[in-house]
Structures are given as structure tokens and as C-alpha cells.
């Protein structure tokens, strides 16, 4: 595992300060893209009436997911400890295949690039990529 340096954490927090205001849009867009570009992920949402981009369930869930990301930013100094409950939720109840964390992360990065073309520099990109990887790892803690 590649742990987050002080520089990474600072970059993530600084960028998140800008992105947080658009968190709901980001979440909705990332989820929408995931469902379109990686249709196999739709299987987790067969109980939704509408899986189209920007639909009500997609928007609602995007908000939920971004709430988790915000929590992770706040607990960036101890992701494993801080996300324990979320890890248990994903491991025992949701049972999301952890491979999908990488997919969602990729789509989050794509959305950040479209929404913040100037701010999403390569340095910010690498910090966010590392952060999302660490987040995914923390979520996978309780799986087995």
C-alpha cells in the first residue's frame, strides 16, 4: 500500500475545499458515468426504477457516496479506523465487489477533470488517486 504523505493530504484537503460545494453534482455525475461506461455495475442497483444518468435514485445515491468521501477527507489521518463502520456495511450488507471501488474512483477522477480543468493538475490528480485508493482499501478492511 502506498501511504499518504503530508503533501498528499494537504493537496487533497485543499482541492476538496473547492470541490465540496459541488459534491452532490460530482457524486451524481460519477455514478451516472459508472452505470453507462461500466454497465456490469448496474447489477447492484436492480431495485432502482430508473438507472439513467441524473435520475432521482442516481442523484440521491451520489449524495450518499459523496458524504462518505467527505467523511474520509475529514478522517484522512486514520482512514482504516475512521471508516470501520462503512467497511462493515460494504463487507457484510452491501457486499460490493471491491474491484468496483477502482471503477467508481476512476469515474470520480474523470468528473473532477471535467468540472475543475484548471485545478485538477497532475499533482492534484496523483494525490486524489492515492487518496481514493487508500479509501477503497479502508473500505475493504472488513471483507475477509
Amino acid at each position, binding site marked *: 500500500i502506498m501511504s499518504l504523505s503530508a503533501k498528499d493530504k494537504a493537496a487533497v484537503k485543499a482541492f476538496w475545499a473547492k470541490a465540496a460545494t459541488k459534491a452532490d453534482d460530482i457524486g451524481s455525475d460519477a455514478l451516472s458515468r459508472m452505470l453507462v461506461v461500466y454497465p456490469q455495475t448496474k447489477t447492484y442497483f436492480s431495485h432502482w426504477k430508473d438507472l439513467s444518468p441524473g435520475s432521482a435514485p442516481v442523484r440521491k445515491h451520489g449524495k450518499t457516496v459523496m458524504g462518505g468521501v467527505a467523511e474520509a477527507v475529514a478522517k484522512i489521518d486514520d482512514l482504516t479506523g475512521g471508516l470501520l463502520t462503512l467497511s462493515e456495511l460494504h463487507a457484510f450488507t452491501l457486499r460490493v465487489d471491491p474491484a468496483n471501488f477502482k471503477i467508481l474512483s476512476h469515474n470520480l477522477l474523470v468528473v473532477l477533470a471535467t*468540472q475543475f480543468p484548471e485545478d485538477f493538475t497532475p499533482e492534484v490528480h496523483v494525490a486524489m488517486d492515492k487518496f481514493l485508493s487508500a479509501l477503497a482499501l479502508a473500505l475493504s478492511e472488513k471483507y475477509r
Partner: protein
Amino acid sequence: MVEWTEFERNTIQSIFANLNYEVTGAKALARCLVVYPWTQRYFANFGNLYNAAAIMGNPKVAAHGTVVLHGLDRAVKNMDNIKATYAELSVLHSEKLHVDPDNFKVRLLSPTFTTCMQSCVCVVEQSCDVMSLLDPQLLADCLTIVVAAQMGAAFTAEVQAAFQKFLAVVVSSLCRQYH
């Protein structure tokens, strides 16, 4: 044989028609070297890659990024036979230029190769060999991010799907040429 919808064809043609290969290629490769620093391993003689600023301002990185995009251009113009496009270029390269694939790793760093780099034909052989060392998906992901930043809202989910599908086919075809 890959099937392309009308939307996918138009999307790919449109994206590449509106790309500045020099600018986008440079940005994508530089981003790859910054975000996945272990990829710098394959560019040992590119000079200063010590930090993000150095990488982003490095003229060899920029030049090489352009070469990569021109290599992609062949696939854009031959979407119905990407596999054959790269196979043909690979054969052409090995026959005309008498490149021994085993030696290619060394030739990659030689001055002769640098001049060779101007031709997009070289991109493929280089890619074929580098394939054994470097995961092309890393560069593909960085190119996606760069194009997304450029297109903004126009880079819709459907456009993203078409673009990623195109890159996946290219990556797969390049990998095929390596034995």
C-alpha cells in the same frame, strides 16, 4: 471484430478532429509520468523528470507524447481494423527497418531512434516492446482525463464510454503484437 455504432464512430472522429495532438499528447504523457511515477523507468534518458514541474516542462516528454497521439491517429482512421492496422505497422517496421525486437529496448534509447521517433510507425513497435514493461492502460487513463478536462460538460457519459471503448481496443491490439 469490433462493432462500432454510428454514435461511437462519430464521437471518436470528432474528438480526434478537435484535438491538438502536440498539446494533448504532451499533457497526457506528462500526467502519466507524474501520477504513475514508476513509468518514468522507461524514459531514463529523457533528462529532468525530478518533479512534476520538470516533467510538465520537459521537451522530450512533449515530443514523445505527440508521437503517441499520432500513433493513435492510425487507429482513428482505421476503426474497422485496428488489430490489422497495428499488425501491419509492426510488420512494416520489422521488415523495412530491420529492427530486432530483442534489441529494441536498447534502440529505444539510441540517437537513431530519436530521429526515428518522428515517424508514427515507430510508435507501434515501441509500444509493442514497451508493452512488456509498461501497462498501456495507465496512459489510456491519463489521456481520458486530459480529454475530459478539455471537453468539460461535452464529455458526457456516452462520449466517455465511446472513448474508453476505443482506447481499450487499441490497448488490446497493441498487446497482441507482443510475443
